[in-house]
């Protein structure tokens, strides 16, 4: 049984172990600085499918299967599969689960879904409801553009603060015992809306939620930013991460050399035309399941605070003039 800390956080009694991880990325992410940490780089953005939506679902499904294959788990043998994505009715995750054949819980927390899935997966394991849980999230640049912005071939100019949705997926296999980094604590965030309504400026919309969750985490657990080797947000991008640093500073928390944003790591912004950085459900999943997991296993990082953020908007809410609510969830992963 876990232990509740303060209002938002909890500590796992027997920290669940991340026994395997995998990621799959699209061609553009494969040209980025983290290519060496990617298991599978696609050269075709359609992944051999007839539509982008099918490709996104296949990326997610194959990624989850790959994480299981690495440790010889067969998909029907797992206790829970937790997954989510950005598309309407989370079709990518639902259709991926069709090919997994395990008890499935579909999740939506926009781009924060990866941490939401890890947190809930660990609760299931620590609560004794299962011993083998697989979590996965993914996104696809073309499906996201289509749903939230303009057709791909439309000749529009993207503003300099726009972000580029990552094509890719990350998956983790977690168990009650085994070798690997462990998840020790979690913080469930609340929805925060500071009145940003421009759907091109999601970093700014999500930064207050990230600040709220991080501050709750530090207060609830009695830790400070310096206690972590790495504090990682998901896809705040250049504008959002600057805003987060400012917001944290106002509240007396300094995010300095140990703070990074997955959206800023996945592309080389001087070389790749992605404006303010990467975004999407796949962004934090690809970076964490690849580069960060490798460095936790190697012992380069001992304690990582992963806090991806989600912009909880829909194309309809945007057209009706609603502002963009944000959310962030945090998990603490320690080298095993």
């Amino acid at each position, binding site marked *: 049984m876990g232990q509740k800390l303060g209002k938002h956080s909890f500590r796992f009694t027997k920290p669940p172990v991340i026994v395997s991880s995998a990621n799959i990325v699209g061609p553009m992410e494969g040209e980025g600085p983290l290519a060496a940490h990617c298991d599978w780089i696609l050269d075709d953005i359609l992944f051999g499918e*007839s*539509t982008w939506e099918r490709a996104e679902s296949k990326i997610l499904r194959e990624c989850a299967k790959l994480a299981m294959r690495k440790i010889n788990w067969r998909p029907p043998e797992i206790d829970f599969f937790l997954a989510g994505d950005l598309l309407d009715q989370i079709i990518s995750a639902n259709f991926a689960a069709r090919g997994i054949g395990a008890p499935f819980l579909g999740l939506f927390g926009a781009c924060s879904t990866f941490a939401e899935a890890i947190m809930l997966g660990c609760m299931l394991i620590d609560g004794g409801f299962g011993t083998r849980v697989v979590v996965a999230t993914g996104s696809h640049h073309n499906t996201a553009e*289509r749903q939230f912005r*303009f*057709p*791909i*071939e*439309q*000749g*529009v*100019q*993207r*503003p*300099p*603060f726009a972000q580029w949705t990552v094509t890719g997926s990350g998956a983790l296999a977690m168990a009650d015992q085994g070798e690997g980094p462990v998840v020790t604590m979690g913080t469930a965030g*609340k*929805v*925060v*809306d*500071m*009145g*940003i309504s421009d759907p091109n*400026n999601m970093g*700014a919309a999500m930064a*207050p939620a990230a600040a*709220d969750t991080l501050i709750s985490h530090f207060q609830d657990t009695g830790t400070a930013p310096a206690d972590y080797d790495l504090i990682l947000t998901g896809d705040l991008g*250049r*504008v959002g991460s*600057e*805003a987060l640093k*400012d*917001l944290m500073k*106002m*509240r007396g928390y300094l995010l300095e050399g140990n703070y990074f944003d997955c959206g800023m790591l996945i592309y080389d912004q001087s070389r790749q035309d992605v404006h*303010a950085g990467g975004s999407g459900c796949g962004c934090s999943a690809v970076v964490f399941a690849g580069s960060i997991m490798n460095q936790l296993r190697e012992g380069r990082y001992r304690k990582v605070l992963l806090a991806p953020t989600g912009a909880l908007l829909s194309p309809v809410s945007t057209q009706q003039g609603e502002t963009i*609510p944000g959310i962030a969830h945090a998990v603490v992963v320690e080298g095993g």
Partner: protein
Amino acid sequence: MNEKTGSGEQQLEISEYQSLINRIMPRHTYLKNAILAFLVGGCICLIGQFILQIYTAQGLEQQQAQAATSATMVFLGAFLTGIGVYDRIGKHGGAGSIVPITGFANSIVAPAMEARREGFIFGIGARMFTIAGPVLVYGFLISVLIGIIYFLLR
């Protein structure tokens, strides 16, 4: 508890946050954008003029030549969209490539290309005008209004 912001202990007013964001936001490069739009739009019009001259030289009357030129420019815009070039022109050209008739063709062909996978009726048929639709609706509306004004003032 503030119901709109979700923040219990409101540390920061929405207006304060807005000004913090305005300070961080990268600036639009208005001058560069305007110059590029001028050049790209100008080039498209120059090509149109060139095609018009050819048609007139071939013996078409002025009005017929204009219609043929529009049709040719629409074809070029649609063709360049189809082979994946027009979005790259638009990225640099901005309004310069949106305003001419080639941009209109682009805004119809681009959604149609994507909607193909949802079928001919509810895909292409229904979605083709998602972007161009408002231009048509308000274009027609204004033309009717101007027609009425013209009729009254005549």
